[in-house]
């Protein structure tokens, strides 16, 4: 069965081809191509998971390129980590496609949406089973491209195009680093293989700085893809895409691919302890800062987006403190409950016709099923036992406590409290209290069954997965690891803070509005509130950096953008445009001017050659 693993990505790829050929004629039945293929992939990957759980593994490759004396091989590998990822990705994406049948019903680019989603899943699955960095990188880039296309699915609105381009450009910064890291490692070891790289690098007795640099370059790719600080700025904007995309790509799978990359190259990071420590630091900061920002968002999808960054931060933090299996555990539980939350939010948006939580309120009466599943997701995310998030987050924070850098533990623990707070706030604002907008209330209606069934299905793992797989997963991933150190009272602190967060959220948001406003005006809270509202100035900083290197599109410049003339065409770095304009001006059409430029360049070159050559 393991040898059939390439079929898992091949099936959606075949479905993609069918979409391309028959998509237009099939009408809305086109969705079935992808759903059937993904259902088969899911069954196959579950079978693989069972086999892997019994100790099977595979790593196969064929020679692909021979350059000089070098041989590059292509192939796939399935071990515990990959099997778990395969099952998770194919399962979630299958149900998200089912959900999308309802959500995208009547969309003018229905076929395009499904074909892109299917291609994305094929690429993601390819990245999971790739046994070498080269194939992984190719699939990684295709994922980026699909993400770009899907964020800009409704490209009639220029804001969506802008968000798509921003996501593409920002993640590309990470990709440049990743590519350099891959090449560096390859030029040293002459292999791209995940399995062989750590051993080959370790055997070379390289200086620590080199190993750190390679690991950090690879990590830069993960930072871009997993939206870690400071490259997190693209993810909230990416919510411009359809909500199923936010659930699939920007919560459950693609953004987790960065964590997966770190896990897949963990052997390299183990050789570079300093780099690994930085992974933890970036993870800790990314867990904390976005959590604070999520507390002040009014858009329900933005809350979830910042929460995603924060949870990805936890996973990186786990990697950084050496709790590899805890990070993957959290990746798994997060994928289910965050996909669930996004789909439920999508159902709310579908019903309410707005994303602004301040215009909702009291929707519980109309949206019972959606509301119940959203609450399940919230409890899981807020890490309330026995819901799944509790188990994985607990494992991470225990490991952080046991690590030398306890600051990471504190960042994670405070963020846990914040998480519980902002999710409680979101639930209360959305579903409870008095309806704040009569029109929304009137308009609201429960979603069709095709959307509710995936919600219910996903809420089961979101609730139960944690304690079911806690022990088996740990044994699968790290069979010989020692039991986690006892953390004493500090082991319970995150849970206490989570409960406190829920309590504060309920107290503030079920209570009268005047109390909240008074609190906001208090001198202690106001600057913090402003900082969070302003997204800790990250977007402004990002804009300045992009502007300075002349790399990013000019409209990344956020607020500045509004003052830039619209004539500065579709967004490439303003500096690049200015430089291009200068050269365009030199092209006057006058031959003699061209000749003169040539002669001047020649003269400068000759003088410099003479001066340097002596």
């Amino acid at each position, binding site marked *: 069965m393991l040898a059939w693993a390439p079929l898992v990505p091949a099936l959606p790829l075949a479905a993609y081809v069918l979409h391309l050929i028959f998509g237009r004629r099939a009408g809305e039945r086109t969705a079935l191509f992808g759903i059937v293929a993904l259902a088969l992939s899911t069954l196959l990957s579950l079978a693989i998971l069972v086999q892997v759980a019994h100790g099977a593994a595979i790593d196969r490759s064929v020679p692909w390129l021979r350059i000089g004396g070098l041989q590059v091989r292509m192939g796939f590998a399935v071990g515990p980590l990959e099997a778990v990822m395969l099952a998770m990705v194919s399962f979630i994406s299958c149900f998200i496609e089912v959900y999308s049948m309802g959500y995208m019903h009547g969309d003018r680019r229905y076929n395009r949406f499904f074909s892109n989603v299917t291609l994305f899943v094929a690429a993601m699955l390819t990245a999971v089973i790739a046994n070498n960095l080269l194939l992984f990188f190719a699939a990684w880039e295709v994922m980026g491209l699909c993400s770009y296309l899907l964020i800009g699915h409704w490209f009639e609105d220029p804001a969506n195009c802008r968000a798509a381009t921003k996501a593409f450009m920002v993640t590309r910064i990470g990709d440049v680093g990743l590519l350099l890291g891959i090449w560096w490692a390859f030029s040293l070891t002459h292999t791209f293989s995940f399995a062989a790289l750590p051993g080959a690098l370790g055997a070379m007795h390289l200086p620590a700085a080199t190993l750190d640099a390679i690991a950090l370059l690879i990590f830069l790719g993960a930072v871009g893809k997993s939206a870690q600080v400071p490259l997190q700025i693209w993810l909230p904007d990416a919510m411009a895409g359809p909500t199923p995309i936010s659930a699939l790509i920007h919560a459950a799978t693609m953004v987790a691919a960065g964590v997966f990359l770190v896990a897949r190259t963990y052997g390299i990071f183990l050789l570079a302890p300093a780099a690994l420590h930085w992974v933890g630091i970036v993870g800790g900061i990314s867990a904390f800062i976005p959590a604070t920002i999520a507390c002040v968002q009014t858009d329900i999808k933005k809350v979830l987006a910042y929460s995603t960054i924060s949870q990805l931060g936890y996973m990186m933090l786990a990697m950084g403190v050496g709790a590899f299996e805890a990070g993957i555990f959290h990746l798994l539980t997060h994928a289910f409950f965050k996909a669930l939350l996004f789909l439920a939010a999508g159902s709310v948006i579908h019903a309410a016709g707005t994303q602004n939580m301040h215009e909702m309120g009291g929707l519980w009466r109309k949206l019972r099923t959606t509301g119940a599943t959203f609450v399940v997701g919230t409890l899981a995310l807020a890490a309330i036992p026995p819901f799944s998030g509790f188990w994985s987050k607990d494992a991470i924070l225990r490991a952080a406590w046991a690590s030398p850098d306890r600051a990471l533990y504190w960042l994670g623990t405070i963020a846990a409290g914040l998480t519980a707070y902002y999710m409680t706030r979101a639930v209360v604002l959305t579903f409870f209290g008095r309806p704040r907008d009569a029109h929304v209330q009137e308009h609201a209606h429960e979603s069709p069954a095709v959307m509710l069934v995936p919600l219910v299905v996903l809420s089961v793992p979101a609730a139960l997965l944690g304690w079911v797989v806690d022990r088996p997963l740990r044994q699968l991933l790290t069979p010989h690891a020692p039991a986690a150190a006892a953390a004493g009272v500090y082991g319970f602190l995150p849970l206490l803070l989570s409960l406190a967060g829920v309590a504060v959220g309920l107290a503030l948001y079920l209570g009268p509005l005047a109390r909240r406003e008074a609190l906001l005006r208090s001198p202690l809270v106001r600057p913090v509130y402003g900082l969070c509202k302003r997204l800790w100035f990250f977007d402004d900083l990002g804009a300045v950096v992009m502007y300075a290197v002349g790399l990013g599109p000019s409209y990344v410049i956020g607020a500045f953008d509004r003052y830039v003339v619209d004539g500065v065409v579709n967004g490439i770095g303003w500096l690049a445009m200015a430089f291009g304009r200068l050269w*365009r001006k030199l*092209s*006057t*059409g*006058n*031959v*003699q001017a061209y*000749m*003169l430029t040539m*002669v001047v360049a020649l003269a400068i070159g000759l003088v410099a050659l003479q001066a340097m050559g002596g």
Partner: protein
Amino acid sequence: MIAAQGIPLVAFLAVAAVLFCIGLFAALRRANAIMVLMGIELMLNAVNINLVAFSRYSAPADAARGQAFALFVLAVAAAEAAVGLALVIIVSRRRNTIEVDKIDTLRG
């Protein structure tokens, strides 16, 4: 027969260098396209002085190469002039001008 006895090689090279630059100057300044071409012909002549002078001052075994090279330069220059002048004639017919700075519709 007059021979170059007593004249250092560098004297010929200097003449060629100055001729090359005068040709360049003509090509850069004349407004008339024909004269631009002629400026370039002057530059090619300078190249030939170089080649012939080097050939005269180098070992007999190497001498023939320079002169043969110069002959090819002459032939190519003639061909270039023929095509160039044909182009000038076309342009003058279609645009009523042969001033290079007025032939600038392609730009940017």
